[in-house]
């Protein structure tokens, strides 16, 4: 088996800035030219190396980077000179000096330039300086190839050709330059980084770390409660929201249970001071978004840039259904008012107008992962400095369209659903809305109360298997969870609770379970599907379950997976069946997977 190798030091020189192990050592004004900058770096080294002044710019750059790379800590006497190698690469070889040399030919060729018309002189200068005698090479590639460098250097170390190696990229042409050097050793000394393609890429890219995004407020409305407090109370009592259909005029009433919000459109319109003619999706969205913003109580919000990113799957379909009944009979009939807000974006627009949000708004629709995607798109808007605050989540009302759609797919359970049970038969549709208020670190510090937690990780991957079914390997789900962990810088053992997508269909729970097994086996955190309470709220589910995840961190909760009886034979784990309070919960993963293979996972972390 291959040994692990480690990056024990790194040095980046670019944009007139020198970084050692990620920290800035020196930064110069952009106004000075490249040779001037390189000389300024040399002066900080406190060394006297006459050869430096003879070198061309490419060699100066590489040599300076190697000096900084090896400074402070590297004891070369640990190794034999033959055991230390230098493997470098760049795009333009020695072209910078080649061109100067060509110009000098007219007035009599310059031998001092000529000697630098080979790129591998850079490795030579480093070896001369340090008396290294191990393997050296200089590769030319269009871009820095982290995979190639890790493979090549890894092989030299694994085969004991070398015991330590300086490797990386030294590129300079005119004003454009970049050096990125890595010291690779076999011995793990102190706080070092594993030598992998991903780590090398990350160090090479040298990006400013993205700022944290915090959750300052939450709002939710579902079949188990019209607000956060009511939903929490239902969880504690173990009361599911499913019942016979009452609001929808459908032939399926009484045949399949659904999880309806317990307020009528009139009541919803009334509490929001809205017209009852609005789509129920808009009314649900407004109710939860308002609660979230009120909960966040951000001081001086009117001076901040605020966005609204909302998700839904069928827009104003409930009203379009009414329109179509008349329209089909006669194309000049049907109240236009009922179809005017058919578009998904209309729901968002109406609510944004009510909330007074106009700096940024958009709508996402990726089936059942819609609002998970809305939440992390919102976080990225903050990280990319588009806005300071984002109200993000989603809403979906039950409609005949979706009820009949899922009915044709034959995945509706005629009883209350049993997610992750061996004898599960399908899902119950639900409705509702859930929003979180995301804020930048700067805004978080102005809050009168402490923020709930932060959104530490997220990822969106595609199963690319089938338009509606999930792959048996759970590829998309696996990649989504894995990617979210990587972005959060966490490992599986850090996760204290998973809010499963857990629809209760044979296909989803099997695929999701397989993905959980692939990632977590043999140590499974507690997990459950809160869809056993709320039903599957489609485009709202990611937002609703994000709110529940945030509450799990805030109050140390683990929600029960209702009606679970028999463990699925494929797996060694089973969902949590009891409501637990006062748990130590630092990191919660929330899964949302949808049609079109769209799989997203979010991770919320205690501050």
């Amino acid at each position, binding site marked *: 088996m291959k040994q692990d190798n480690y990056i024990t030091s790194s040095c980046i020189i670019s944009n007139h800035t020198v970084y050692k192990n990620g920290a800035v050592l020196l930064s110069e004004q952009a106004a000075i030219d490249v040779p001037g900058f390189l000389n300024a770096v040399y002066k900080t080294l406190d060394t006297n190396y006459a050869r430096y002044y003879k070198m061309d710019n490419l060699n100066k750059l590489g040599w300076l980077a190697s000096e900084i790379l090896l400074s402070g800590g590297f004891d070369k006497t640990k190794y034999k000179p033959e055991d230390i190698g230098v493997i470098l690469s760049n795009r333009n070889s020695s072209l910078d000096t080649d061109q100067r040399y060509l110009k000098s030919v007219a007035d009599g060729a310059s031998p001092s330039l000529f000697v630098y018309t080979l790129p591998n002189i850079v490795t030579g200068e480093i070896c001369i300086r340090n008396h290294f005698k191990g393997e050296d090479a200089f590769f030319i590639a269009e871009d820095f190839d982290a995979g190639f460098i890790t493979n090549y250097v890894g092989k030299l170390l694994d085969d004991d050709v070398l015991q330590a190696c300086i490797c990386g990229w030294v590129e300079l042409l005119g004003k454009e330059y970049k050096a990125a050097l890595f010291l690779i050793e076999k011995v793990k000394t102190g706080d070092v980084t594993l030598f992998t393609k991903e780590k090398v890429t990350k160090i090479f890219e040298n990006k400013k770390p*993205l700022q944290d995004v915090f959750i300052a407020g939450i709002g939710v409305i579902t079949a188990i409660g019209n607000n956060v407090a009511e939903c929490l109370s239902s969880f504690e009592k173990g009361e599911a929201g499913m019942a016979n259909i009452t609001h929808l005029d459908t032939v399926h009433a009484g045949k399949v249970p659904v999880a309806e919000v317990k307020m009528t459109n009139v009541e919803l319109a009334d509490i929001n001071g809205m017209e009852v003619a609005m789509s129920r999706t808009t009314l649900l969205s407004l109710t939860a978004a308002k609660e979230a913003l009120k909960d966040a109580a951000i001081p001086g919000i009117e001076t901040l840039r605020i966005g609204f990113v909302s998700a839904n799957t069928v827009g104003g379909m409930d009203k379009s259904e009414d329109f179509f009944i008349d329209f089909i009979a006669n194309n000049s009939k049907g109240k236009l008012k009922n179809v005017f807000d058919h578009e998904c974006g209309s729901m968002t627009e109406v609510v944004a107008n009510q909330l007074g949000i106009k700096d940024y708004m958009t709508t996402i629709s990726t089936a059942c992962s819609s609002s998970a995607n809305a939440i992390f798109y919102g976080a990225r808007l903050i990280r990319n400095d588009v806005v300071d605050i984002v109200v993000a989540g989603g809403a979906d009302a039950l409609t005949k369209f979706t009820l009949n759609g899922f009915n*044709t797919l034959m995945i509706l359970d005629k009883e209350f659903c049993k997610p992750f049970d061996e004898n599960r038969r399908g899902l119950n549709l639900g409705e509702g809305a859930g929003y979180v208020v995301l804020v930048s670190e700067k805004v978080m510090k102005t809050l009168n109360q402490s923020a709930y937690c932060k959104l530490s990780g997220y990822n969106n991957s595609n199963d690319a298997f089938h338009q509606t079914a999930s792959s048996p390997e759970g590829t998309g789900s696996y*990649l989504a969870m894995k990617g979210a962990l990587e972005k959060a810088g966490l490992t599986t053992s850090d996760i204290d609770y998973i809010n499963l997508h857990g629809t209760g269909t044979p296909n989803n729970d099997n695929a999701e379970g397989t993905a959980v097994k692939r990632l977590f086996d043999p140590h499974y955190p507690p997990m459950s599907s809160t869809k056993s309470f709320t039903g599957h709220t489609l485009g709202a589910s990611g937002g609703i379950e994000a709110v529940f995840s945030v509450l799990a961190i805030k109050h140390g909760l683990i929600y029960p997976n209702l009606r679970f009886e028999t463990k699925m034979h494929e797996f060694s784990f089973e969902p949590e069946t009891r409501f637990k309070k006062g748990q130590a919960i630092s990191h919660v993963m929330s899964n949302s997977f949808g049609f079109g293979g769209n799989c997203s996972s979010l991770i919320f972390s205690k501050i």
Partner: protein
Amino acid sequence: MKIYIRSAACISPQKTLHQDDLLTNPVEYNDTRLKAIEPDYSAYLDPKLTRRMSHVIKMGVGAAMECLRNGEITMPGAVITGTAYGCLEDTVTFLTRMIDMDEEMLPPTAFIQSTHNTVAAQIALMLKCHSYNNTFVHKGISFESALLDGIMLLNEGEADNVLVGGTDEMTDVSYTILKRLGLYKRFRGSNLSLFKTNSTGTIGGEGAAFVLLSDKASAVNLAELTGMQNFYKPIGIDDIEARIIAFLKKYNLSIADVDLVITGKNGDLKNDAGYDQLANTTFNNCATANYKHLCGEYPTSSAFALWMAANIVKSGKVPASVLEVGAENIMPKTILIYNHYLNLYHSLMLVSTC
């Protein structure tokens, strides 16, 4: 960091899919509804697959595949689409059957394909692309939202070769409804003289246009996407002007540096009033071009404009069919696209030579 449009492809009511001649012989329609010219999809798609695909799915997947082919990229790093209406044909089919058949014995296919993310999903499925996949559905800025997502992914170093597209289809039903809502002209006329009609209403259109975004310089690249911004409900024309100037300033440009302005004029007197005002003020020394007479008005038509701008910058020629003010041989180096949707959503895109 610079963001490049590595390649682009467009299916529209014009012959846009093969770009050897850029809109030199525009297709004339004497109608208030322009339908996309469907290519022979068998060059891109397995006929077994296309048989079940609706119009918008075929347009979207076809344009996406052509875009990847133009960019010589087999696997994108992300797939992001924008669509205001989604899969209308399938939605209407399912809705109609549901009502006609009293919710009994419905086939599932139309429902399955009615979700708004079907185009992006089908692209992922065909390519076996497990990367980031998202769909924005926000009216007249659906495409702009997708574009911002793509730009952010590149900024974050999350992906390269981000495939971003805008797709919308016009169906008989949506045309009828939008006509009843007063969006379209009441009289038929040539689309090529759309801007001379001096009447209210526009012409309906549809299409699918994709761009492949990358932060890597390459000889293949069509153009640089220098900037993108959208704003909602501006307070009058002064606000719009100020925002355009501020947008350009962000990139150290003034309006004098813009060689061509592509506007979203759609032939509706009310809609075009703002553009006409700007033509006399902010843009009064600029060459200007329009595009909606060629593709019709639809919420993601700005994707057509971006496809067009990228190709103009690359070829150095402005097609006579789109020019309003200025000369064909101006070789624009910097193009500003300014479009608004129902005067609510305004978008600015800046495209430059690379």
